[in-house]
């Protein structure tokens, strides 16, 4: 028995992307609708301070807070950080400053971007104002960014009903993260073997069970698996189900059979689709073999070998 040779390591791009749809409570709804209307709302706490952006519960006392007020679109930078290399999704695509801005009338800071020519033009205490986005939908990005603003603080905080026509009640926040995925040693070896039409498992050094597909560890013993063992190609259907709903982007006619298949020599069943036999004739114990399509890197499906069915005793431990 020899240790697995170092496989050609596999890597592939992996994009995880989802449009998160979120509903807004009464306070966030009023705030984001306000932004659409170029109106900045805060919420007053029981102790009298004004939170911008507003929240529904007092961060100190946890009391429900609903008293909305309007604050100015001008304010003062409380801290900043110069961003020389903007990243995807950030408010500006040229170098800018991240800022916390205390809007006139507010007691807390709002995080956003400041459009400034360079870091020497930014300092804490500088006066800024909101630059509104041309297209506003009721989102924090309705503030395109802040821009420098000469001028003092002369704003009165005024009560606001929070009522607008056509309130924004939800946002869609798209999120995308990019990865370069590598499955590691054991799974790379498995996938590389498959493309040569071989199914290779790994044997646990302690319990001797052969794992297919291998993940590099025996989950029973908690030990690394190294010894490679070729299994199959034929195997036995240990259990199955009949799929009646067509999956999107999957070009397989329903109904079809999805089965657990114990390849000969494997210590557990893997799963695959059964073809080449009417769906209602698939049974436990059916002997099957993989079918490869031209250029396929893994078996397209499994079909009956024509052998007699396996005896239940030979696969009952693998169900």
């Amino acid at each position, binding site marked *: 028995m020899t240790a697995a040779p170092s496989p050609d390591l596999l890597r592939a791009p992996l994009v995880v992307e989802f449009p998160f749809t979120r509903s807004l409570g009464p306070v966030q709804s009023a705030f984001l609708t306000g932004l659409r209307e170029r109106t900045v709302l805060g919420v007053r706490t029981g102790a009298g301070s004004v939170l911008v*952006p507003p929240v529904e519960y007092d961060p100190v006392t946890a009391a429900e807070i609903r008293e909305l007020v309007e604050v100015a679109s001008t304010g003062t930078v409380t*801290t900043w950080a110069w961003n020389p290399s903007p990243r995807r999704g*950030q408010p500006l695509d040229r170098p800018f400053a991240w800022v*916390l801005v205390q809007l006139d009338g507010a007691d807390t*800071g709002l995080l956003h971007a400041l459009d400034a020519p360079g870091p020497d033009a930014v300092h804490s205490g500088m006066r800024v104002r909101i630059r509104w986005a041309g297209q506003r939908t009721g989102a*924090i990005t309705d503030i395109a960014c802040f821009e420098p603003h000469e001028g003092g603080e002369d704003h009165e905080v005024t009560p606001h009903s929070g009522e607008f026509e056509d309130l924004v009640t939800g946002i869609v926040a798209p*999120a995308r993260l990019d990865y370069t995925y590598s*499955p590691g040693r054991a799974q790379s070896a498995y996938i590389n073997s498959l493309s040569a039409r071989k199914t290779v498992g790994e044997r646990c050094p302690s319990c001797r069970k052969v794992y297919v597909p291998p993940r590099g560890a025996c989950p029973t013993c908690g030990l690394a698996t190294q010894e490679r063992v070729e299994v199959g190609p034929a195997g036995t259907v240990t259990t199955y189900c009949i799929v009646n709903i067509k999956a999107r982007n999957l070009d397989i006619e329903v109904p079809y059979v999805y089965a657990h298949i114990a390849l000969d020599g494997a210590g557990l069943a893997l799963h695959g689709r059964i073809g080449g036999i009417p769906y209602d004739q698939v049974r436990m114990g059916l002997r099957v073999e993989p079918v490869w399509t031209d250029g396929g890197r893994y078996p397209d499906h499994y079909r009956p070998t024509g052998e007699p069915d396996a005896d239940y005793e030979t696969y009952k431990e693998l169900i």
Partner: protein
Amino acid sequence: MAPTGSGGPARPARDVAIVAFAQTDHLRRTDELSEVEMLMPVLHRVLDATGLKTSDIGFTCSGSSDYLAGRAFSFTMALDGVGAWPPISESHVEMDGAWALYEAWVKILTGEADTALVYSYGKSSPGEVRDVLTRQLDPYYVAPLWPDSVALAALQAQALIDAGEADEAALASIADRSRASATANPHAQVRGSRPPGDYVVRPLRTGDCPPVGDGAAAVILAAGDRVRELCARPAWIRGMDHRIEAHSLGVRDLTDSPSSRLAATHAGAFERPVDTAELHAPFTSQEVVLRKALKLGDGVAVNPSGGALAANPVMAAGLIRLGEAAARIHRGESDRALAHATSGPCLQQNLVAVLEGES
């Protein structure tokens, strides 16, 4: 444990100790290893150190993040490394493993287990960790702007500079000291003197930021009599607590860390001086904040391991602080150590443990 009421420390109901600690060498990338392949050697090392088998462990708890892995329920794959069949008593936190250790500690305090295996791991190399960490931010007002983790830390650093509590030279000296200390740490990713580098997000330079890398760590906890069988000089957990601050950065004083101070108070950190502090401060500026909040004097050895500036495997770096502090006690280099872990932007959540050896 007795109710803490007015905020003073409470004596834990059972004596619990960290009896073993292991970590990987932290590397920029580990493409050749899946998470479980990366993790398994450290699991074996803590088990070997104590002579325990997985079947002897009363409770297993882990920390990791699906967003780092780019995959749902990613921790279930790593479970293969602990031998989870036949079924074990197991739990997972979608956080740094320091919080998994807290859960395991509580489990032991309640008497439901006498031993616990705690592990955590993170591979930052497949993705962009600065972008990944934006997904823990407020999804309504902040996350749509994609402010990355360095940007938020830089806002905190500038607030410190404006308050006169640090300057860029002071920050650079923290980086220097940390990476000089890391020369004695064979697991660290970044060791020894290096130039401060360019601004990543001003005022933070490359040197003020943690390295991006992959790694894992594991710890074994035990209670009462089991401790004596497993470890010659155990690191007794005298107290542990974790606290959180408001989510919105704009309502917090970024130059302070009241949650760290409160956690330290509840953990009993201020009852007597500590000789060692392992602080989870991924950015130099955060060490300034933590030193002040935790009232650490110049006589305290801060991050003798090199800290997160020398190796910052996300989701494991906090557990490693607890492990490094414990290992120092195991080796007889410390008698009373403070260990700290953080999570969230600008030290939003903080955990403090006090560990002691017996003289």
